[in-house]
């Protein structure tokens, strides 16, 4: 039986009716494909996507292939969070209950070039991954600046472009940063810190701040707006910038390893509670210094390992990976960090050949 015979059993369609019906089918497909393309951003090339953001971050000198596209130079550490239980009345997070929880972390400097000299590390950072016995995780990436430089991803993108290497000169455009500062007055508190904070030769003597706000959720379901900091127990030793220049490119890693050979380093984990009116969505603004601060535990850093074979290498320190009892705030940087970190992680895990592991006997790699 042919097609035509079958079709004739219904009232036959005229040629134009068949054409019209095919047009309907075509229209459905076209509209669906168009909607999909719109959702994926292909119709709006101006959209700031993780791909564009990370491409801009990847263009700040050196060869970032295989590496994190920001905070590209760093070193792994392992240790323990010793929670004292003081936070338990504010958050049901399992790793804030009094006890000891394993930590895999990373110290880094906020550069795009994984081979940068440590003197480029105006902003130093600490990332942690704290795991509770029931497998929940608290990941956090913290900087030593008291505030962040911008409040939203668009501004961060523009800042990154201002730092991109000009292929003609091999350096960033010297006027670009000034133009950025002039047009972004909310970056002034960061700039003030950047120009006045003393330089030191160590990751160990720095405080690391969450910068973004988060919410602690207590046992009754009430939410508390917080920021947290890792406060050093080593007092900082300021060093003139000119002296740093004579110290070689890797003085931070050498300092860390030397200090840890004498014993563990510790930080106090301090949680700051907002008062009504304190901004939850603007990381460029510090909260007033009289806010309630609760010491909730001690981070004990025991061992440092080179990143290439270290335990932090293959973790994405996405600050939105949080346990029950901690949630994100409405700070727009958090979603942007999560999305961009994922893109960076996706790229670098596909580039292992560009950042080889140290050859070891087969099967010995963790």
């Amino acid at each position, binding site marked *: *039986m042919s097609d035509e015979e079958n079709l004739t059993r219904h009232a036959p369609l005229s040629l134009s009716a068949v054409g019209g019906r095919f047009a309907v089918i075509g229209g459905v497909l076209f509209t669906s*494909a168009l*909607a999909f393309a719109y959702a*994926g*951003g292909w119709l709006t090339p101006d959209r700031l996507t993780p791909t564009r953001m990370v491409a801009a971050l990847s263009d700040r000198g050196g060869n970032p292939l295989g590496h994190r596209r920001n905070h590209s130079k760093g070193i792994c550490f392992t240790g323990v969070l010793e929670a004292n239980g003081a936070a338990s009345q504010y958050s049901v997070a399992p790793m804030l209950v009094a006890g000891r929880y394993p930590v895999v972390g990373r110290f880094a400097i906020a550069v795009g070039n994984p081979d940068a000299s440590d003197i480029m590390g105006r902003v130093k950072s600490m990332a942690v991954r704290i795991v509770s016995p029931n497998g929940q995780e608290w990941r956090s990436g913290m900087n030593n600046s008291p505030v962040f430089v911008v409040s939203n991803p668009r501004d961060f993108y523009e800042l990154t472009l201002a730092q991109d290497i000009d292929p003609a000169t091999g350096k960033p455009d010297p006027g670009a940063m000034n133009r950025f500062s002039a047009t972004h007055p909310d970056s002034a508190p960061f700039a003030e810190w950047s120009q006045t904070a003393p330089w030191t030769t160590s990751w160990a003597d720095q405080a690391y701040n969450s910068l973004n706000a988060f919410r602690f959720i207590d046992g009754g379901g009430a939410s508390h707006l917080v920021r947290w900091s890792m406060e050093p127990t080593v007092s900082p030793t300021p060093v003139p910038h000119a002296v740093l220049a004579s110290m070689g490119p890797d003085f931070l890693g050498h300092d860390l390893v030397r200090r840890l050979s004498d014993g563990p380093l510790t930080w106090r984990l301090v949680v700051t509670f907002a008062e009504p009116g304190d901004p939850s969505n603007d990381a460029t603004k510090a909260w007033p210094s009289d806010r309630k601060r609760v010491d909730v535990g001690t981070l004990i850093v025991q061992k440092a390992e080179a990143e290439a074979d270290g335990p932090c290498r293959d973790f*994405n320190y996405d600050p939105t990976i949080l346990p*029950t009892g901690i949630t994100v705030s409405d700070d*727009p940087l958090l979603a942007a960090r999560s*999305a961009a970190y994922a893109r960076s992680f996706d790229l*670098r895990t596909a580039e292992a050949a560009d950042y080889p592991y140290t050859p070891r006997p087969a099967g010995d790699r963790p």
Partner: protein
Amino acid sequence: MRTERDGFSGLQRVLHWLMAIMVLTMLFIGVSMVSTLKPRFLTLITIHKPLGIAILALAALRLAVRLRLGAPPLPDDLPRIQALAAKLSHFMLYALLMAMPLVGWGMLSAGGYPVVLYGSLHLPEILPHDDQLHAILRTTHTVLAYVFFTTILLHVAAALFHALIRRDGVFRAMAGIGPRNQ
């Protein structure tokens, strides 16, 4: 003149249309979330993971139902090439329904991410933490998403071809409305 075929069972129709909505939602969420830095990124990815696992569970149920109840026969007069295309695309759709969530789950496992469904409800890792495995699965997840969307478009086109041009009852077998076979 033949009597109308029975069509798919009620359970199969419910599963089909429910999963159609879920899968299309999933594909649009996926393609949106990887292209934005806005706060909706977090909302979308929070939906994406449990929705994917729900699709995996329903796909397993649906496959079992399909193997038990089968599908109504295609019209006798359907050209062989079209019958082959129907069988192949249905096989692809079933394979993708199972593969997409598993690849996503495996990709998170290999990336060292916790696989959070809701709150403290986590799924176990199904693969070791391994960057190269993550890279392969991450790419696979994207490629399969485009293959999936394309296959769905072809499936929709074929369904509408049956409903509007051939009017042979194939559309009605799943939709419950549309031209009867005559």
